[in-house]
């Protein structure tokens, strides 16, 4: 009887080990810089919904309702503005990143235009080597 138990136990443990030997990849952290702002936005929206409910249920005077609602709306506006700012700054960062990649590609291309025979640099659009006259590919 006991060997069956050993067999089941070790079989299951081996099954758990399998992923360790497979081709692996890493995940990218999903934590967003603006998660806090998104939370804040949801919170203000929730607050406005609650406020309207409380008002309908008669828990707030007209005056309180108006002033508190206004303060929530201002708060919401502020948060949305910040989110947009972050989004645009993220976009800008992305553009800079992308263009820097493009920028890096240029010298790479230049490298490609080196003469395969003598190794001297040529202009991008040149078809023959300036020095030895060999055809450039």
């Amino acid at each position, binding site marked *: 009887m006991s060997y069956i*138990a050993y067999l089941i136990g070790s079989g299951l443990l081996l099954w758990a080990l399998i992923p360790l030997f497979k081709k692996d990849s890493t995940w990218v952290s999903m934590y967003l810089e603006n998660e806090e702002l998104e939370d804040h936005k949801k919170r203000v929206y929730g607050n406005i919904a609650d406020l309207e409910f409380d008002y309908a249920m008669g828990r707030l005077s007209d005056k309180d309702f108006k002033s508190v609602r206004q303060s929530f709306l201002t708060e919401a506006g502020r948060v949305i503005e910040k989110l947009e700012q972050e989004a645009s700054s993220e976009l800008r960062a992305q553009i800079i990143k992308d263009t820097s990649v493009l920028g890096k590609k240029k010298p790479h291309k230049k490298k490609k235009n080196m003469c395969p025979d003598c190794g001297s640099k040529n202009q991008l659009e040149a078809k023959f080597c300036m020095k030895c006259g060999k055809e450039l590919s």
Partner: protein
Amino acid sequence: MADLGNILLFFLFPASVFTALTALAAGYTKRRGLLEAARRGAYVAFGVTTLAVLALEYLLVTSDFSIEYVASNTNLALPMFYKVVALWAGHNGSLLLWTWIVTIFSAIVAYQNRHKNNDLMPYVIFVMAATMTFFSILSIFISNPFDTLYQDLGNTLQEYAVPDGRGLNPLLQHPAMVIHPPVLFIGYVGAVVPFAFAIAALITGNLGAGWIHTTRRWALTTWGFLAAGIVLGGKWAYVELGWGGYWAWDPVENASLLPWLTATAYLHSVMIQERKGMLKVWNMTLVIATFLLSIFGTFLTRSGVVSSVHAFANSGLGPAFAIFLTIAALFSVGLLLFRAKDLKPDEEMQSLVSRESSFLFNNLLFLLATIAVLWGTLFPVISELFTGDQITVGPPWFNNIMIPIGLALLLLTGVGPLLAWRHTSAETLKRSFGLPILGSAVFVAILYFSGVKDGWALGSFAISFFVMWTIVFEFVKGARIRSKNSGDQFFKAMYMLSRKNTRRYGGYIIHAAMVVMFIGFTGNAFNSETRAEVGEGDTFELGPYTFYANHIHHAENENYSSETLELEIRKGDRIVTLIKPEKRYYFASEQPSTEVGIYSSMREDIYAVLSGMSNDGQKVIVQVYRNPFVKMVWIGAFILVFGTLFAMLPNLRETKSGKIVQESKGVE
């Protein structure tokens, strides 16, 4: 089969260690393969533990008396049903059940989140696996349910089997006792899930509302199971222990109440974090405290520390629990302190008369209650440590502190929902509270003049009336407004209203349940009892009732012998009912037990216990209690479970085209 079970249980140890280590490595390296391995580790732990539990069940059902656990907790004559549930009748089996539930929950959490929460999951699995490792050590090395019986033959030890077991403790042979431990354990163990997510949030720094949304249902489930487990324990004590009540502030009862108190505080204060971005550190503290108190509760009931500090040292379980608790507390509090600077509140409190301040008072009261219960429970241990003598604080001490706290909390359930967030003006206060206060005052006056003079009871009834009024008002007014806006019929409007915000209305249902239960608790103020020695044909009285001893008879079966009194309850000329209190003597365990006779109506319970035979053996001694409103406690518990389930339903939402769909966002 014992070998099979033992070996499979042994595999739990490497499986949980493997799971914990790969999970930790996955968190550090963010490698998918490692996380998948950790996830599989959790499944394996569940698999081997399930097989071990099945093996133990097989041994119990087939009455293999070479196994110490089987021999100590069952016997041949025990009904099959009780043989199956004897899995959690004793020490070692209970721990195995605890361990099994941890592995079940770990596997469920790992599976539920297999495609999401990648950042948190490694640490969530790590925390759960670490807990699993601890319980596997207890179950395998300290109190293993597969241990066999040995006899000492001079130089060698030899395995042997007894012809029949000692049987199941008679007190445990009751249906409520059958489901009470697993229900309570699910509540205890459930606390590990929010705890694991909170710790993962602290480790990774993902301190947004994500972990709260993910664990919302787990927190509610834990809370509901704890509540149901506590009430089931009370029900069992009521019908089985035969002292006339359902709650005695016993250490074991208190142990289950403690995590429930902090969990209730958390369910309230988390709403402030969601709405105001405040109390972030406090919420983490409550989640951590609930987990630690759950472990502490298990420790309290399993180590025997309260009966004597010496039992603690002798059992082997005590020190193990103490070490685990210390490590868990230091680790989690250390992490919390480390992250405290990132958990600053987003807003400040603006007014004392607001919904958020009522939540704060609520939390303060729950904190006070927790500290009081903890202190009262540990007082015998502390006094024994310092003075050498055990000084126990009894029910009066607890009642003096807990009744005012309980009533204040009940009052808040009525006041809180009527207050608006941020600020409520005096004018609206008058409008919201005027009528319910007036209504309660009239109600109390009626009660007073009809003869209820007990101050606490009057206070409790007044508050109950007030709270019930506000709850009914919430539903009715909400439904009216909705019905006006949408044109729905009143009851459909009420249904839609509550289904659109299940948490709010589920919460109200739970508050109503608490009111009903409090009416039941208040009934204790009017309890009365009498004791009589009766022979066949004798009568005695209690209140408006006359009790007539119809018949006394003796019976015997293979499990126990019994004396039963047939007691007729009469009110005036009318026969109300016949109850049969019984005294049993169980052969296998050589223990007596009482089966109470109860006549239960909405108004009161008539509760009769057969305490024994008179000296000459001709008469029986019967103790009769008249307990008003006890039924309300059980009815309240049913409403509470319903409210909890309702709060877990997904919200309904109306689309622009008027179609009704289920919301799934943010709720797990």
